Structures are given as C-alpha cells and as structure tokens.
C-alpha cells in the first residue's frame, strides 16, 4: 500500500467536509476519486498533502505517517499534486515553473539538472515549444498540462491529480489518458479526481466515491457504477451507469464524453 488514509475527519467551522474517511491505495495503479460537488474530494487531497491538518485520523505514505506534515515535507517524500484551480507561477517561464518541481521534488535536483529534466518533461506533455514563454500567457488547457508537468518533474511516487481533464476537448482527453497510463506503467501511482465519468471509468483500476464528506462506496468501476447509493447520490441515472459499465459501444451512451 503506497497510501493509507485512516478515519480522516475535517471540518470547516460548522461544515463537516470529511467524516471518518478511510481508504488504501495499492502501488502502481490509477485510482479514481469521484463524488458530487462539495463532497470533500479536494479537501481530501488537501489533507493528504498537508495543506490542511485533519481533526482526526491518519495519513500514511509509504509506511510513514505524514499526518500534519507541512506540504513541502510531503512533496519531498515523493507525493506530487496538480491543482483543480490551476496555480501557475505567472511571472516565471514555463521552464522555470517545471524546474521548481524538479528542484524541490523527491530528488531535489540541482539547478542545471532541473533544467534538463524540465525540458524532457515539457516535451512529454507537449509544451516544449512554449518553454520560454511566461506561464501566465498560457491558456487554461495548457496551464493544466503545466500543472501536470510540474508534478511529473518532481519524480513522485504518488501523483494527486485534481480534475486535470476538465477543460480538455475529447481528443485532448484521449491523449492525456494515454499519457497517464504511460506514467502509471512507469510505476507511479495516480489518484485522480475527475468529473469526466467516461474517462474515470475507463482508466481507473479502482474507484472511491465520496458524498457529503463520507465514503459511500468503493470498488472497481463496474461495482461502483452499479452501486445504488452512488447512482442516487452522484450518477443519478441508471442508464448512465449502464453505459459506464458497458463501455462506449453501449447504445445507452452519449456520443462523446461531454460529462454529466
């Protein structure tokens, strides 16, 4: 198990954002984290990587408890994250952005080495020709790729991806899914939050569902999509569930994954 989340609870004032959530991530897989808006998914990420300390519960990463560690300590242990709301370092170049990831990631590369890694990673996510542009000048889709590039450059064991597919067109989604699979195949574990159901159901080895801060289901995509509670809380439509289950060929499915 690369990551164990044990009975994590987190509240914001009167709002119970997470309540007693537990799950485990086996190494080398892609895991989907889904749930309605405001279910606490992003909060879960924030707790895992140390942005918020939880009120109770533990987070264990590669056998070491990291609960309450500041985010930079977590990052240095090999846990990288791409944000839901992109946070590019606007006044720095795209290359510098990625270099930050490389310099301060798990390997803590030197300045020169980081520059080399940055160029490789940018090549990989398709931003190579923009390396010298200021990050602020990228469009949203490119910024999402930049988020991913920064995370990759840190050579993480575990990658937390918060809606990196949002805002991408179907072709881009397909390309990105390819990339994610290759990253997984290199041994990086991926935990992804995603509302693009088709994608999640396709790529995930395992899916966890949150609702109102509680884990309401988990299992393979098939199991989850058939769970009545998930259908009620999140999918809302049995037909859609069937589509997800049967794959894109099903006549129950929309022509492209426009999301729900």
């Amino acid at each position, binding site marked *: 198990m690369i990551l164990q989340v044990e009975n994590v609870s987190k509240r914001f004032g*009167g709002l119970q954002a997470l309540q007693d959530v537990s799950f485990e991530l086996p190494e080398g897989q892609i895991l989907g984290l889904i749930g309605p*808006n405001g279910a606490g998914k992003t909060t879960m990420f924030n707790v895992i990587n140390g942005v918020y300390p939880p009120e109770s519960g533990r987070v264990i990463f590669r056998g070491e408890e990291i609960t309450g560690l500041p985010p930079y300590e977590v990052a240095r242990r090999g846990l990288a994250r791409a944000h839901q709301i992109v946070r590019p370092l606007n006044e720095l170049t795209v290359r510098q952005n990625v270099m930050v990831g490389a310099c301060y990631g798990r390997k803590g590369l030197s300045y020169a080495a980081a520059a080399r890694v940055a160029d490789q990673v940018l090549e990989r996510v398709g931003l190579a020709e923009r390396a010298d542009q200021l990050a602020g000048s990228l469009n*949203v889709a490119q910024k999402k790729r930049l988020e991913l590039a920064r995370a990759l450059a840190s050579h993480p064991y575990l990658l937390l991806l918060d809606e990196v597919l949002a805002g991408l067109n179907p072709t881009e989604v397909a390309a990105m899914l390819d990339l994610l699979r290759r990253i997984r195949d290199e041994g990086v574990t991926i935990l992804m939050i995603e509302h693009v159901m088709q994608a999640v159901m396709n790529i995930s080895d395992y899916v966890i569902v949150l609702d109102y801060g509680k884990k309401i289901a988990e299992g393979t995509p098939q199991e989850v999509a058939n769970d009545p509670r998930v259908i009620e809380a999140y999918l809302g439509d049995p037909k859609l569930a069937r*589509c997800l289950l049967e794959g894109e060929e099903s006549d*129950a*499915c*929309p022509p492209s994954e426009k*999301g729900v």
Partner: protein
Amino acid sequence: MMSTVLEVQDVASGYGEVQILWGVSLRLEEGKLTTLVGSNGVGKTTLLRTVTGLLRPWKGKVLFQGKDITRLPPHERANAGIALVPEGRQLFTDMTVAENLEMGAFSRRAIAHRRKNLERVFDLFPRLKERQQQKAGTLSGGEQQMLAVARGLMAEPEVLMIDELSLGLSPVLSLSLFETMRQLRAEGLTILLVEQNVHMALAISDYAYVLSEGRIWMEGPAREVAAREEIRQAYLGM
C-alpha cells in the same frame, strides 16, 4: 407577438488572451423561461458575466429592451433590471442575512417593492426568515444558496439569470426551487437558467440553448431540444 427582453448578438469574450466565447447569439423572450445547457467550462458563466457587464465582450452586442447596453457598467445594468444569481453565490459574508437581502433590493426600481418581495422570499425560504440576523458567512452551504437566490429575487428584475440554480442544495430543496422558477415564470418574469440538472431544467423551460466549445450548438423549444437524439445522448445520458 412576444417581445424580446434581452438579446446577445454575436458575442466573443474571454479572459486575458484566452478566448472562451466565439460569437454567441441568444434571445430571451418576455415572460419565458429559457435554459442554457452546456458541459463544464464551455463558457456558460462567461456568457452570463458578459451579459451583466462583469466581463467586457471583445466583440458583439448586448441589447436590453431594444437598447444597446454593451458599454454600460454592471451596476447600471443591474439598475436597469438585469439580475444575476452568480456562480459561487458571492454573498456579502460579513453582513447579516437581512442586510444581504436589503442589498439585493438596492436599486431604485427594487426599493418600492421591497416589502412585497421580502414577504415572498420569506415565504419561499422560511429558514431565511428565522436567520435574519445571522451573518451570511456562517450559513450552511445550502442556506447560502437559498440566500443567493433570494437576493436575486429581491431585485425586482426584468430578467433574472441564475447560474447553477440547484448547486449544493438537497434534492428536495432543488425540486421546490424548480417549482418556484415555474411559478415566477407564471407571474411573468423572464428567466435564464443555467443548471447541471439538465433533465429538470429542460422540463420546466420554454426554450433552450446548447452551448458547446464557446458556440451555440443548438437551440429550440425546450421540449424539442430535449427530444433531439444528440442532446439525449450528450447531455441527458440516454
């Protein structure tokens, strides 16, 4: 003949250098409930921000009651009768519930109807009546959404636009909100609805626009749109 209250003509808009809308046109007929359908990030909110003036269109026009209002600042559009319940609620978190509602009725046109609207809003959302003196920021998410909608209703608008009506509301409450929309429409209010629950939205609407990649992909009477095969597949999951 029905008259057009609000018309968007060939609007292009975006943020910084990123273009989001690529020539969108849309008309709101008086007293009708229109719905705007589209996936995440296609630019629905961007369109509403452009209509209210929070965002300057790069090209195109916005007409309100036949007048070109493209260059009016947002507060003048609000005073003219365009109300928006914005995405993310945007409450005055440090002010009380009552004060938020009062701010909703800030425009001159709304003051006269304040008492009447307040009664209706409290009728609709008894919870708000109980919590008048509570700071808006301390309300629960659902209550905040109620307050946001209520604040929009206080404006006594000509056109009410609601971005994500049922966001964060319990199913029961969202149902009753849809019912309210129908009621308001019956009272003659012009409404533009953006809603994730496309099923419900189409069911209560008169007319529908489908926005895709920053362009109007399809439009028509809501019933017809809902019946179209590609819509059923793309947005209704059928």
